[in-house]
C-alpha cells in the first residue's frame, strides 16, 4: 500500500529548473559593509540604512533558536550571498521592459506577466531573487487609491508609510531570523488599501529563488486602513539544487479598525531529494495586528522546503477583532516542518480560530506549534483550536506542541486534536468501489484538508490541488 501512496505524494518537483541570466551578485559573506552595500544598491535613504544597521548589530548578539523540532546542519552565514539581481538592460519595475528571459521564467511557472495574458482578476508582483521584476495591474489599482508595488519602490515613492509601519508589528529585534532579514532584506511587496476601499482584485506576490548559494530575504508589508479589505496571495518556488538555500522572510500585516486582510500562501520551495539532499531552509516570521473589529485570516498550504519554521500570528489588539489560521502542512521524504500560529488576545471579545492539518509521509516530521495567549484585559476572549495529523506509512512522525496562557478567567478555549493513519481499510473500501489507489489516496487526503482548502481563493485552490495531486470536491474536471 504505502509504495502507491508514496508515489502519489512523492511527485516530481516541477519547478526545479534554473533560469540562465546574467546577474549582479555580491560575494558571499555578511558584515556591516554588506548591509551598507545592499542599501546603497537600492539608493536607500539614511533612516533605512540606520534601521538595517541597528538590526544587524542586534542580530550579532542573538543566537539561532534551538527549540524548534527540526534538525539541520549548522548554517554558515558567511557562506551565503545576500544579494543577487538579474542584470537587465532597462530598469526593473515597469512591465513593458521586463527581460524576455524573465517573462519566459514566469510563464514556465504558470504566472504570465505580459499584459495580454495576465491572470484575470489577480495583480502580481514578481520577485526574482533579490528584486521585484514587475508588478501587474498597478495603474488599474491606483484608480482606487490602492498602492501595490515592490518594497524598494515603496521606500522611494511612499517613505512616510514605510517609515510609519516598517517593524511596527515585527520589530527588528523580534527574533534571530527577523533581525537577519531586517538587516539584509532586498525586496518584497507593499500593499496599501485606503480607508473604506474593498480591493477589487486579488493581490499576489510570486517569489522565485534562482541564483545559487543565494539567500532570499524579502519583506512584505500590507496596510489596510479603516474599513478596507484585501485578499492577498503568496506563492514561491526554487530550482533543484544539491546545496541548501536560505530563505528568511518577514511579513507584517496591519488591519486598522473594521478592516479585513486575508493572506493565503502556497509554499512550494524545493524540498530536497528523497535522501534529504538540498532544499530550502525556510525561516519565516509572519504576524498581523488587528485593531477594533478588524479581521486577519492566514491560510497556508505548506508543501515545500527542507526545513519550515513558520508561525503566522495575530495580535488581537482591538476589541472584537478576529484572528484565523488555516493550515495544511505536508512533509514527505526527509522534510521537516515546525509550523503553527500565535494568537495574542489583548482586546475585549476577541476571537481566534485555528485549524491545522498536518500530513506526514516518507520519513517526514511534522510539528504543530501553537500558542494562545489571553491577556488580563481580554474579557470574553474565545479560541477554538483544531489540530489534526495524518500519517502515511510507518517511518514519518507527527507532533503537537500547544501552549496556552490565560490571564483572564472569562476566556473560553476549546481544543480538539486527532491523529489518524491513512487506513488500508479506507483505501480498500474506495478500491472496492472501483477507484485506483491514487484516486483513493487523493480523495482521503482532500477530505482531510477540506476545511482548509475551502478558505483558499479559487485560483489558489486549483494550484494547491495540483500540488498535492488531489482533486477537490466540486471542482470541475
Amino acid at each position, binding site marked *: *500500500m504505502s509504495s502507491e501512496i508514496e508515489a502519489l505524494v512523492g511527485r516530481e518537483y516541477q519547478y526545479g529548473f534554473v533560469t540562465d541570466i546574467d546577474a549582479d551578485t555580491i560575494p558571499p559573506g555578511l558584515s556591516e559593509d554588506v548591509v551598507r552595500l545592499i542599501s546603497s544598491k537600492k539608493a536607500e535613504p539614511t533612516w533605512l540604512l540606520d534601521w538595517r544597521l541597528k538590526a544587524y548589530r542586534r542580530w550579532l548578539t542573538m543566537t539561532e533558536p534551538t527549540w524548534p523540532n527540526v534538525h539541520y546542519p549548522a548554517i554558515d552565514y558567511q557562506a551565503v550571498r545576500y544579494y543577487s539581481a538579474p542584470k537587465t538592460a532597462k530598469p526593473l519595475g515597469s512591465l513593458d521592459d521586463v527581460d524576455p528571459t524573465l517573462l519566459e521564467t514566469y510563464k514556465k511557472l504558470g504566472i504570465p506577466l505580459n499584459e495580454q495574458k495576465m491572470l484575470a482578476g489577480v495583480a502580481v508582483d514578481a520577485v526574482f531573487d533579490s528584486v521585484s521584476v514587475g508588478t501587474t495591474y498597478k495603474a488599474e489599482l491606483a484608480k482606487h487609491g490602492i498602492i501595490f508595488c515592490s518594497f524598494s519602490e515603496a521606500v522611494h515613492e511612499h517613505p512616510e508609510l514605510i517609515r510609519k509601519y516598517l517593524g511596527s508589528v515585527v520589530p527588528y529585534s523580534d527574533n534571530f531570523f527577523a533581525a537577519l532579514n531586517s538587516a539584509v532584506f532586498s525586496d518584497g511587496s507593499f500593499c496599501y488599501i485606503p480607508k473604506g476601499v474593498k480591493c477589487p482584485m486579488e493581490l499576489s506576490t510570486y517569489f522565485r529563488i534562482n541564483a545559487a548559494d543565494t539567500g532570499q530575504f524579502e519583506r512584505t508589508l500590507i496596510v489596510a486602513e479603516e474599513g478596507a479589505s484585501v485578499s492577498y496571495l503568496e506563492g514561491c518556488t526554487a530550482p533543484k539544487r544539491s546545496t541548501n538555500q536560505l530563505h528568511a522572510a518577514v511579513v507584517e500585516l496591519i488591519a486598522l479598525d473594521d478592516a479585513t486582510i486575508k493572506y493565503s500562501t502556497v509554499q512550494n520551495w524545493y524540498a530536497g531529494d528523497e535522501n534529504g539532499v538540498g532544499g530550502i531552509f525556510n525561516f519565516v516570521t509572519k504576524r498581523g495586528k488587528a485593531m477594533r473589529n478588524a479581521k486577519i485570516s492566514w491560510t497556508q498550504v505548506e508543501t515545500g522546503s527542507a526545513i519550515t519554521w513558520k508561525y503566522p500570528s495575530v495580535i488581537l489588539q482591538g476589541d472584537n477583532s478576529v484572528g484565523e489560521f488555516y493550515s495544511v502542512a505536508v512533509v514527505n521524504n526527509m522534510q521537516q516542518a515546525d509550523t503553527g500560529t500565535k494568537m495574542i488576545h489583548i482586546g475585549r471579545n476577541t476571537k481566534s480560530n485555528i485549524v491545522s492539518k498536518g500530513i506526514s509521509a516518507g520519513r517526514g516530521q511534522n510539528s504543530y506549534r501553537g500558542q494562545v495567549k489571553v491577556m488580563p484585559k481580554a474579557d470574553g476572549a474565545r479560541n477554538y483550536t483544531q489540530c489534526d495529523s495524518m500519517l502515511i506509512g510507518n517511518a514519518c512522525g507527527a507532533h503537537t506542541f500547544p501552549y496556552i496562557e490565560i490571564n483572564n478567567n472569562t476566556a473560553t478555549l476549546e481544543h480538539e486534536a486527532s491523529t489518524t493513519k491513512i*487506513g*488500508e*481499510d*479506507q483505501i*480498500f*473500501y*474506495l*478500491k*472496492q*468501489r*472501483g*477507484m*485506483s*489507489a491514487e*484516486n483513493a489516496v487523493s*480523495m*482521503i487526503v*482532500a*477530505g*482531510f*484538508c*477540506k*476545511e482548509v482548502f475551502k478558505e483558499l481563493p479559487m485560483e489558489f485552490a486549483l494550484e494547491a490541488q495540483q500540488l498535492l495531486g488531489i482533486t477537490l*470536491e*466540486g471542482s*470541475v474536471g
Partner: protein
Amino acid sequence: MLEITNLTASAGEKDILKGINLSVNAGEVHAIMGPNGSGKSTLAQVLAGHPSYEVTGGTVRFEGEDLLELAPEERAHRGVFLAFQYPIEIPGVSNAYFLRSAYNAMRVARGGDEVDPMEFLDVMEEKLKIVEMDDAMLSRSVNMGFSGGEKKRNEILQMAVLEPKLAILDETDSGLDIDALRVVAEGVNKLRRPDNAAIVVTHYQRLLNYIVPDYVHVLAGGRIIRSGTRELALELEEKGYDWLLQEALA
C-alpha cells in the same frame, strides 16, 4: 459465473479458510450462514481482494477469469461488489462525491465517459428511491456519524448505483429495524436480474423471507459443512448449529 475451488486463506499466522468450494450461477442467490468467527467475512473480503488476507491455495474463477490475479479495483470493474459488514468512514468526503467518483471510475474502466454532477443527480434520484433514503444523506461525509442502519442502507445505495454482476452482502441485515430490513431486502430484490447473482451472508433466516435464496450454505471452521435449500435455514433457526457441527465432526 463464480467458481471457487479448494480456496484456503490466512491472515497473519492464522489459517481461516480451509478449503472452500462454491459455485454460483447467474440468476442465483446463495445464502451463507454459520457461527461467529467461522470465516464468512473472510471469504467475502478474499473475494474482493482485501490485502490483509493471503490466499494460500485454491482457485477462484469469475466469468472465466482468474479473479485472484486481479487487483481489488479491477474486480470491482468486472462487477464484483462487496457490501461491508462494517462500512468505512471517510471524513471530509461527501457521500455524493464519493458515489459519483465510484460511478465514474466504473464507467471509465468499462470504456465509457464520465458523467457530470448534473447528469449524476438524475441517476441518484432514481437510486435513492430504491433504498428510500433522504437526499440529505448525500451531502454528509461518507458514513461519518451514520447510524448502524444508515450505514447498511448506504451500502445498498452504492450497490444500486454501481449495478454489480455479483453482489456479496456481508450481514447487511444486522442492526436494521424491521422497516429498514424490508427496504434493504426490497432494494436487493429490485436489483435482481437473470444475469446477476448475489451471495448473502446472514445470521438470520428472517432476511431470507424477503430475499429468497436458491441455496443455503453453512460455513464453520473455514469450511462449508452443509449446503441445502431455504429449508436448511429454517432448520438452523430451530436447532442452531450444534447438531451440524457434531455431524461434521463425526
